[in-house]
């Protein structure tokens, strides 16, 4: 263990990124997880406080369903407890938890394979609230709806790489480990995904105007 895992996150450049936990605590994620593994189960609470929001963001962006997002976060922490003995001394907690999260998401998508990704009504309500604001904000809110719809239409592997790199602020190196491919492949995929997102985004906008 050389670095606190949080140091692996890219320095956020946008306010939205501020929700990524900051490494101010003396105890590192890794130390906490080792304690949990040794039987101090309650210390998982600290890790929950650090990770549940980024994880929730990961799932909501991947599934477009806030209510499903909560269930999936709960499942991740359940699996951490259940498989705590498999956490390794040389492990890296952030990598491990995202590894589990990807598996949980994959299970979810496998179970709901044929169903298209819905736009959650809760999201729509959020946007309706924003719609009551001055027109500039209303436009921004509509943009968000469009972008979410576009994200939902991307193939999972493109959506995933965008969510991990742009929204979860994981390093390309870390994503490569997660996806089990080279760093170069991650970058190529991220670029393609962005281009595709743009195409889908403008296509939906055109459909809406027409």
């Amino acid at each position: 263990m050389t670095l606190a895992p949080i140091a692996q996150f890219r320095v956020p450049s946008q306010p939205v990124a501020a929700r990524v936990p900051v490494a101010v605590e003396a105890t590192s994620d890794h130390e906490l997880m080792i304690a949990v593994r040794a039987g101090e189960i309650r210390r998982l609470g600290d890790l929950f406080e650090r990770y549940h929001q980024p994880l929730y963001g990961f799932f909501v962006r991947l599934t477009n369903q806030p209510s499903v997002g909560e269930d999936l976060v709960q499942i991740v922490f359940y699996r951490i407890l259940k498989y705590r003995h498999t956490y390794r001394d040389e492990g890296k907690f952030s990598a491990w938890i995202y590894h589990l999260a990807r598996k949980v998401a994959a299970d979810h998508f496998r179970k709901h394979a044929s169903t298209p990704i819905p736009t959650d009504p809760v999201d729509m309500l959020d946007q309706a609230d924003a719609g009551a604001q001055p027109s500039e904000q209303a436009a921004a809110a509509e943009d968000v709806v469009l972008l979410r719809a576009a994200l939902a239409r991307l193939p999972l592997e493109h959506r995933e790489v965008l969510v991990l790199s742009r929204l979860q602020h994981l390093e390309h190196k870390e994503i490569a480990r997660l996806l089990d491919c080279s760093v170069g492949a991650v970058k190529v995929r991220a670029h393609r995904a962005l281009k595709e997102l743009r195409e889908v985004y403008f296509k939906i906008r055109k459909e809406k105007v027409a």
Partner: protein
Amino acid sequence: MNCQRVQDNFIDYQDGSLPADESAQLRAHLTSCPTCQREWAALQEMTRKLDALPVAEPSPRLRENFYAMLDHAQRDADAPSPFALARSRIDRFFAALLPEQPAMQFAFALALLVCGLLAGQHYLARPAAAPVDDSAKREVAELRKQMDAVNQLVVASLLQQKSTTERIQAVLTTMDQKAPSPSDLHAMLTVMQTDSSINVRLSIVDALNQHSDDSIVRAGVLSALPRERAPLVQVAMIELLTAARDRVAEPVFEKLSRDESVDLNVRAAARRALAVLRLPAASPTATLQPAAQPLLT
């Protein structure tokens, strides 16, 4: 640098990981190539939009469920049998209370047996052979009345106690008997349906597992299941009913497994339970846990 090369480097350039000399070449190319300029601007725009994408906050339910699960797991890890801990405390408590005279001690122990309240095994063993005369019987009857009152008090206080820990302790002590009386079980079922704490409700379902052969217990759990809101408790209830192989539960499981508004884990547990119930009674210990994952990372 050709256009393809330049565009391949966009992602690195964007997050500042492109070496300085290549960055300089890229910038030079951008100033002279309208195609790459457009591409770069589009990439920047989409990135900006993505970075600005807000995320809703998870509801308090997430935190509540997580800490309920954590408490549960910590208790499991601390003491394989939480009952053992409770028993030793209660033994000490009653040892201090126990009257000095043998007759009274006998009556008191018998009252404990009758009321089924908090009886430690070694008290029960002692009086077995003693003769019982009329005055002793009256004494016992009187004590039994008092103990019934105490028993009701315990249940009442269970519902009113402020701290979750105290309520859980009360559940454990009430249930930590060789044979809890029907009224104890009834009280537990009532608290299970009314207590505001997930942890208390979960403790009760856990404790009731030992009494799942009692049809009153199963009926109580089954009727509480559709009204229970916490997924963890619902799953525990489903597991109890499944372990008892009570096919009466099938319609309720069926309904839960189909209800879109029900938590995913609960629906999955209901589906697994249905599968187990419909199995020919071969493997009564069929597990309800999600399939084990291969070793990770």
